[in-house]
């Protein structure tokens, strides 16, 4: 299956595509491009079969609907319905509320995640922390816990009767329903935060190690305290990592599926269409409405791309602005 797919790089392998350079000779050049093609073929065969074709199929399917819903699949059973599925998805209150929940989830989760991971990385980098590598390992440990297991652990820690947390709080006179209508999103943010904060902390910490010593020393010589050095010298220097972490966090947050899917087994607060991904799953595999599921998939895809693009544009504009500011400072 992986070797029969067309290769998008095929055009690139043609010997006429690139002029021969520095007397390497046409045959040598052809040999190189041949090797390049062979090394790339398995990956691009996969890219075509499990990425390009599925994305195209999703777009294609979204324009078709079943004449008799719930009967069979495949193009022979379906008719062209244009944008009808999109209209259905975008006016479906359960889909819109799912989108709303994911937006709320992102608005809470991403800033908390980035700030916590950054704060921990800066604290560890300050050189004040005892047992630093042990602390790092402890913080990183949840990353080795699979997402579904993390959800199971926290589900049990949220379940009255099973949870020592609820008992402890109860002894202190506090009753919390972790899976109530107002707490269910923060409870899921907590699971994701627990799973990923250590990982992102290590990413930031690794980036901080690359900050040149001279820059930090210069700041200290200039009289900047540790807090100031951390916030105004180190943090701006690792902005690329911060943006990358925020971006990946966003992409994964938009796919929110595993945690609500598991929690939905134990709480009526989470319906089977709680998040857009659950909506897609429900539409495709419970209601067998492939057109609707495909339209919802495309909407989610467009949102993801638009947001990622927005973040990239926004940060590059910030970069340009700070570069201009730096130039002005140098000129002054």
């Amino acid at each position, binding site marked *: *299956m*992986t070797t029969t797919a067309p290769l998008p790089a095929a055009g*690139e392998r043609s010997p006429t595509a690139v002029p021969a350079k520095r007397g390497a000779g046409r045959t040598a050049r052809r040999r190189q491009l*041949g090797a390049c093609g*062979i*090394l790339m073929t*398995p990956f*691009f065969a*996969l*890219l075509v*079969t*499990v*990425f390009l074709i*599925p994305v195209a199929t*999703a777009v294609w*399917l979204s324009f078709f609907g079943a004449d008799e819903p719930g009967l069979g*699949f495949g193009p022979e059973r379906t008719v062209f319905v244009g944008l009808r599925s999109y209209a259905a998805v975008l006016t479906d209150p359960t889909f819109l509320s799912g989108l709303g929940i994911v937006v709320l989830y992102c608005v809470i989760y991403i800033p908390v995640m980035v700030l*916590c991971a950054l704060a*921990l990385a800066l604290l560890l980098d300050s050189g*004040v*922390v005892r047992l630093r590598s042990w*602390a790092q390992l*402890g913080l990183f*440990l*949840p*990353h*080795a*816990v*699979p997402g*579904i*297991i993390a959800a*199971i*652990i926290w589900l049990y820690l949220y379940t009255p009767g*099973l949870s020592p947390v609820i*008992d402890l709080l109860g002894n202190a006179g506090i009753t919390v329903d972790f899976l109530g209508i107002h707490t269910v999103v923060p409870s899921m943010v907590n699971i994701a935060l627990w799973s990923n904060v*250590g990982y992102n902390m290590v*990413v930031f910490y690794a980036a901080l*190690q*690359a900050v040149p010593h001279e820059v930090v020393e210069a700041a200290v010589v*200039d*009289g*900047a305290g540790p*807090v*100031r050095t951390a916030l*105004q010298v180190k943090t701006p220097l690792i902005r*690329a990592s911060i943006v990358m972490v925020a971006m990946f966090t966003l*992409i994964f947050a938009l796919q929110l599926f*595993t945690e609500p899917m*598991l929690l939905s*087994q134990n709480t009526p607060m989470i319906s089977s269409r709680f998040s*857009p*991904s659950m909506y897609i*799953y429900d539409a495709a*595999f419970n209601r067998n409405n*492939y057109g609707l599921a*495909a339209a919802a998939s495309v909407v*989610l*895809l467009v949102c*993801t*791309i638009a947001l990622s693009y927005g973040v990239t544009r926004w940060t590059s504009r910030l970069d340009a602005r700070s570069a201009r500011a730096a130039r002005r400072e140098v000129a002054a």
Partner: protein
Amino acid sequence: MSARDIGAGGTVALRPRLLGRSTVNLVVAVSVLYTLLPVLWLVLAATKGRDALFGSDVLSLHDFAFFTNLRALFTQDGGLYGRWYLNSLLYAVLGAALGALISTACGYAFDKYRFRHKEKLFGLVLAAVMVPQTVLALPLYLMASGTGLVNTFWSVFIPVLFNPFGVYLGRIFSQGYVPDEVLEAARVDGAGELATYAKVSLRMLGPGIVTVFLFQLTGIWNNFFLPLVMLSDQHLYPVSLGLFSWNSQATVTPDYYPVVIAGSLLAVLPLILAFALLQRFWRSGLTAGAVK
């Protein structure tokens, strides 16, 4: 930055030195407790019988039922758990090994060869990193059912081989680990391009390949959505999906709780082991991804 700002920052920062030191350690210690305690709870809960579990006596050691739980785990539903575990190992280890080789070879080719539209093609690879898996699941399911692959090993195994982020990392590692001079020298010696890759470059790329392997291993071991969509035969389930299905039964039959907890604990071990053994690799991978 003006001189006035710096002076103010300096005086503020010098005063709370000692206080700051203990505050910093306290914050880090509390954070470590936050990440460790749930894992500790899992370990302790796995040693408890069902009644002790619901009695919330997790911290006491008097009802030690770990081996009873293990026996229950491996005999429940005709020993399905062992089957799931082997499936997960097969999907993850084989998939990550093959996937890492495929991705790094492609990343290496992106680094070492010049051809037209290279950066556009690389842009496509980066775009693939961003596409949500849930978007691809339905069409992948339809393709798999069209080719008769749905509910087989291959329907889960083939898609997990695809790792565009591995190509990105592979390109960075190739830049860092394989000097262009090595290729030039091999060409002067008359060695074929692929022979050079197999005999020289592959060895130099080794640590990079292990890093990508580790990342992909984690991803596949965590994989839940794809098996959920593709598989209906319980014997093909990976651990994640199996525990999910058992957990849904636990809400009806509480006897499943100790089994799910013990099963969860065992499912965590391989990744902890992999991270412990391959520590220096995941660190280098994070650095490569973060600093570039």
